[in-house]
C-alpha cells in the first residue's frame, strides 16, 4: 500500500512519455513528413498538420473521421485526400449540420449522416446554390440578432466554403491528373503565349492555342479566387520573407514567365504519386520539399516541426485525463487510505501541471508571444495558475483539499479551452492594438492570474459547503484550514486583480487616450476587484464569519465568469474581441449552479450534517 503513490507516479510518467513518441506511419506513405511541411495560412506560417486538425475541428467539431467503408482516418490522411484526391474526399462525411431546417434545405435526412449530423460534400452538392442564397439573406442581419436557423445556415455555408478552399489549394478539384495537365500546359506555353500576343496585335494566330490558354487562365483564376493555403514560398530573391503565395496566383504568373514554379510542380507530382499509390515516389518528393524549405527557411521549419510534434502529443488532453484521475484519487483519500491516496493524487496533479506547463510554453515559443493572447489561451492559463496555487496549498495543508480543487479546476478549464478551440487555429495573429508583448506579458497575465485565484477561492468554498452540509467530514481542523486557505487566496486575488486592472488602465491610456473608459470588460475587472475587496473588508469588520466568507467566495465565481465570458457577449465597447453566443447557456447554467450552492449554504447551521460551529 505504501508504494501506491510511486506506482501512480510511474504510470503517469509512462502515459505522458507515450504521448511524446513520434507517430508511426500507418502505411508506407510517410505522412508524418508531409505533416511537417509549412504553409502560410491566416497570416501565420504553420505545419500542414495544424491545418488538417483545425480544419477538421472547424468542419465537424472533432479530429476523428470514419470513411463510409468503415476505415478510420487520421487528420493527415484526410488532408492528403482533400488536397490530392478530392473525388474520394467528397465522399467523406465531415461537414457538421445540426439544425433540422438546414437539413431540409439541403435535402438530406439525419439517417444519411454519420452520427446523424455529419455529411459529405457529395450529399450536399445538389442543393448548394440554395444554401448560398439563404446564407446571403442571413448575412444581412447583424450577428447577435440572427435566429438559430440564420446562425446555422451561415455556419454551414462557411464550413462548405472552407472545404472548397482546401480542395482547390493544390489542384483543380475536377482534374483527374493535374500533373499531366500542368506538364502539357508547360510544353504548350511558349507557343500559346506567342499566339495570344499575336492575337492582341491583330496578327494571324493559332486560335486553338489561344483557346487553351484562355481555358487554363480561367481555371487558374478560379483557384486564385478560392485561395486559402499559401503553399509556395517566396522566390529566392524576394526581400519579403512573408510573401508566400497560393498555387492559383503562382500558376497565373506562368503566363508571364513561360515556366511553372517548381514547387507547384512538386505538389502536382506529389498528388500524382498519392493517387497512383506510389509510396516510394511520394516519400521521395515529400523529403525533397522538406529539405528544400529547410535550406532557405530554417527557423520556420524548426517551429513547424515542433508544432507538428506538439499537435501529435496533445499535451492538454493528457493533462485533462491526469487531472480527472488526481481529482478522483483525492476525493477517495477522504474516505480511505488518506496518506497514500492523497500523496498519489498530489503526484498526478504535479505531473498534469507539468504537462500543461510544457504545452503552454511550447505555444509561447511557437507564437513568440506571452502566454495569454486570446480567449483560448486565457482558459489554459487560468487553469495553469489555479493549479499552481493548488500545488502550494496541497504542499502546505496536506489534507487532500488542494488536489481536489486542482484536479477539478484543471479539468474544467481544459474542457472550456477545448470548446473554444472549435472555431479554428488557436494561435492567431495579434491585431494592431494588441501587438505589444510588454502589455500582453504584464496586464493580461496578471489579470488572468487574478481570475485563477478568484475561481480557486470559490471552489475551495464549494468544498467547504459540500462537505459541511452533505457529509460529516467537516471537522474543526479541516474547517479552520479551509477558512485560512480561502482568506489567503482572496488576499492573493485582490492583489493580482487590482494590479492587473490598473495596468490595463495604463495600457488603455497609452493606446486609446484614457485610463478608464467604463467599457464592459473594464467594468468586469473592476467588479472582481470590488467584490474581493468586499470579502476582505466584510471579514475584517466582523460582518461575516466562516460560512459567510464561503458564500461570498462562491459569489466570486459568478462575478469572475461574468467578467471573463459575459462581457464578451454584449458586443459593446473597444474590448469586444471574443464573441461567442453558444456559451451563453453554459454561462447561465454555471451561474445558476453557483447560486444554488449559495442558497444551500445559507441553510441553518444546525441542519448541516457536520457539527462545526460557524465561528471558526
Amino acid at each position: 500500500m505504501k508504494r501506491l503513490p510511486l506506482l501512480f507516479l510511474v504510470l503517469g510518467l509512462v502515459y505522458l512519455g507515450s504521448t511524446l513518441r513520434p507517430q508511426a506511419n500507418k502505411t508506407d506513405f510517410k505522412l508524418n513528413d508531409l505533416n511537417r511541411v509549412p504553409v502560410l495560412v491566416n497570416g501565420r506560417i504553420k505545419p500542414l498538420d495544424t491545418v488538417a486538425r483545425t480544419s477538421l475541428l472547424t468542419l465537424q467539431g472533432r479530429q476523428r473521421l470514419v470513411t463510409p467503408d468503415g476505415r478510420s482516418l487520421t487528420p493527415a490522411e484526410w488532408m492528403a485526400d482533400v488536397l490530392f484526391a478530392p473525388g474520394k474526399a467528397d465522399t467523406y462525411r465531415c461537414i457538421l449540420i445540426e439544425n433540422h431546417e438546414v437539413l431540409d434545405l439541403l435535402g438530406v435526412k439525419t439517417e444519411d449522416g454519420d452520427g446523424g449530423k455529419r455529411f459529405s460534400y457529395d450529399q450536399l452538392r445538389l442543393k448548394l446554390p440554395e444554401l448560398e442564397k439563404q446564407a446571403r439573406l442571413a448575412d444581412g442581419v447583424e450577428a447577435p440578432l440572427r435566429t438559430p436557423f440564420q446562425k446555422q445556415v451561415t455556419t454551414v455555408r462557411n464550413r462548405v466554403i472552407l472545404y472548397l478552399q482546401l480542395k482547390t489549394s493544390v489542384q483543380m478539384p475536377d482534374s483527374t491528373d493535374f500533373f499531366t495537365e500542368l506538364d502539357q500546359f508547360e510544353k504548350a506555353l511558349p507557343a500559346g503565349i506567342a499566339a495570344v500576343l499575336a492575337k492582341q496585335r491583330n496578327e494571324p494566330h493559332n486560335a486553338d492555342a489561344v483557346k487553351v490558354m484562355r481555358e487554363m487562365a480561367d481555371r487558374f483564376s478560379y483557384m486564385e479566387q478560392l485561395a486559402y493555403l499559401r503553399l509556395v514560398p517566396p522566390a529566392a530573391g524576394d526581400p519579403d520573407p512573408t510573401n508566400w503565395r497560393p498555387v492559383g496566383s503562382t500558376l497565373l504568373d506562368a503566363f508571364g514567365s513561360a515556366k511553372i514554379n517548381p514547387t507547384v510542380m512538386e505538389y502536382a507530382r506529389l498528388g500524382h504519386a498519392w493517387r497512383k499509390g506510389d509510396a516510394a515516389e511520394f516519400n521521395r518528393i515529400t523529403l525533397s520539399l522538406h529539405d528544400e524549405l529547410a535550406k532557405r527557411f530554417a527557423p520556420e521549419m524548426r517551429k513547424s516541426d515542433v508544432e507538428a510534434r506538439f499537435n501529435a502529443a496533445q499535451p492538454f488532453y493528457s493533462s485533462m485525463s491526469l487531472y480527472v484521475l488526481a481529482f478522483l484519487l483525492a476525493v477517495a483519500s477522504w474516505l480511505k487510505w488518506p496518506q497514500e491516496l492523497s500523496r498519489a493524487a498530489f503526484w498526478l496533479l504535479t505531473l498534469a501541471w507539468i504537462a500543461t506547463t510544457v504545452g503552454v510554453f511550447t505555444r509561447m515559443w511557437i507564437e513568440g508571444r506571452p502566454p495569454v493572447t486570446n480567449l483560448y489561451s486565457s482558459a489554459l492559463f487560468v487553469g495553469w495558475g489555479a493549479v499552481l496555487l493548488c500545488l502550494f496549498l496541497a504542499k502546505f495543508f496536506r489534507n487532500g483539499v488542494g488536489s481536489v480543487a486542482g484536479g477539478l479546476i484543471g479539468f474544467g478549464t481544459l474542457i472550456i479551452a477545448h470548446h473554444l478551440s472549435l472555431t479554428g487555429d488557436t494561435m492567431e495573429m495579434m491585431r494592431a492594438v494588441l501587438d505589444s508583448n510588454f502589455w500582453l506579458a504584464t496586464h493580461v497575465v496578471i489579470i488572468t492570474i487574478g481570475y485563477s485565484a478568484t475561481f480557486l477561492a470559490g471552489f475551495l468554498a464549494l468544498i467547504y459547503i459540500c462537505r459541511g452540509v452533505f457529509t460529516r467530514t467537516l471537522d474543526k481542523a479541516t474547517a479552520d484550514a479551509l477558512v485560512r486557505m480561502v482568506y489567503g487566496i482572496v488576499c492573493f486575488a485582490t492583489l493580482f486583480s487590482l494590479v492587473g486592472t490598473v495596468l490595463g488602465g495604463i495600457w488603455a491610456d497609452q493606446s486609446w487616450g484614457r485610463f478608464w473608459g467604463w467599457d464592459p470588460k473594464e467594468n468586469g475587472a473592476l467588479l472582481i476587484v470590488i467584490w474581493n475587496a468586499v470579502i476582505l473588508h466584510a471579514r475584517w469588520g466582523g460582518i461575516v464569519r466562516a460560512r459567510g466568507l464561503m458564500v461570498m467566495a462562491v459569489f466570486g465565481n459568478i462575478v469572475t465568469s461574468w467578467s471573463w465570458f459575459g462581457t464578451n457577449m454584449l458586443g459593446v465597447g473597444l474590448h469586444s474581441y471574443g464573441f461567442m453566443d453558444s456559451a451563453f447557456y453554459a454561462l447561465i447554467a454555471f451561474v445558476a449552479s453557483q447560486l444554488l450552492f449559495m442558497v444551500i449554504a445559507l441553510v441553518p447551521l444546525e441542519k448541516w450534517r457536520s457539527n462545526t460551529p460557524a465561528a471558526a
Partner: protein
Amino acid sequence: MHAITRQFRDFFVSLQLTVGLLILSLILVFAATLDQVNLGIWAVQEKYFRSFFVMWQAPNSDISLPIFPGGYFIGGLLLINLVAAHIYRFQMNWRKMGIQLTHAGLIFLLIGELVTGLMQKDSSMRMEEGQTRSYSESFRDYELALLDKTDAAFDEVVAVPEAVLADEGSVQHPRLPFQVKVKAYYGNATMQMGDPAGRPGAPVATQGVGARVQVIPLPLTYKPDELNQPAAFVEIITTEGTLGTWVVSPLVGMPQTFAYQGKNWELALRLKRHYLPFSLNLLQVTHDKYPGTEIPKNFASRVRLKDEAGHEDREVVIFMNNPLRHGGQTFYQYQMNAAGKMSAFQVVSNPGWLMPYIACILMGVGLTLQFCISLAGFIRKRAGTPAVASSV
C-alpha cells in the same frame, strides 16, 4: 468630542459603510454595463457615473425620479470614508505600512479620476496625406462660426457654442457689426430638397441653401458610431434691417457667404474647433496587414510637427500604443483609411494624466509589501507548528 459629532465621525470611519458603499458600486457598475447595450458608452457614463443620482424618467411624462445613488455620490462618500479612516483608524507603524500605501494610492486614483472627469478634453484631428492642421475638432460639440474672410492672409473667427444656440436667443459680440438671431435650433436634423415654406411652424430661410431645402428635425441618437447633426435657422440683423435668414448645418456642403459694410462674411455650423499653437503635417499613412488576411498588423502615421514660435520642426511617427505628447496634448492613432490616405488622431488634453501612474505605483508597492508581510508571518507560524492540519 460631542456625542453627535462622535456618532457622525464613527459612521464615516466605519467598515460597514465601506462594505455597503462597495456593494452599491458593484450594483451600479453592473447595471451600467447592461444599459450600455441600449445607450452606448458615452450616454451611460453621463447617466450612471458623472451624476449624483441615477434618474429614472416616468413614461409619458417629464418627471424624473432619483432611484439609485450615482457615481459622484458613491465615489464621493468612499473618498470621505477612506480619508476619515486614514485620519482616525490607521496606525502609523511599519507593519501596516503596506495597507497605508495601498489606500493612499487608492485615494490618489479616485482624485485623479475626478480630475480627469472634470478636466479632460477629447477631440479629433482628421487629415489626408499632404494636409496640415493646426486645430482639432470636438467629437460631438458644434459651434456656429462667423468668419470675416476679407483679408486673404487670415480669417477672423467668432465662434458661438452650441449651448448658446440651443437657447434660441440673439447673440451679440463686440467683434461682430451685426446681431445674430437664432430663430430655431434642432439638436439633430436632416435636410431634403423641397419648398421651405412647406413645413408649417418652422422659420423660413430666405438666403443660401436654406431657401431650397426643408429641415426635418430628428430624435437625438446615442449610438456610439452615429453622430448628431444639428441644424439652426439664423437671421443676421443689422442697424439697417435684416440681411436674411440662413439655414446652417454640418450637412451644408458649400460655404454660405454674405457681404456687409465692405467685408465678406461666411457662416458655418461645424464641429467645435480647438486651435493649437503648433501644426501637424501628415506625411505618410501606413496600414500593414498580416499576409493573406485582413487582420491589421500595424497602423502608423508619419507627421511633421511644427511650432508657431519656431522651436520645433521635426518628424514623428505615431502608431498604436505609441502616442505623441506635445504642448499638453496627446495624439493617439485613432482611425485610418489607408486607401484614401486618411489618418485620424484622437487628441486628448488631460492635466491629470500622470495621477493614475503614481497611484498604480503606490498601490502596487503597498499591496506587495502587505502580501509579503502576511506571507512571512504565515510561513513563520507554520514553521513553528510542525504537526498541524494533516487531518482529513
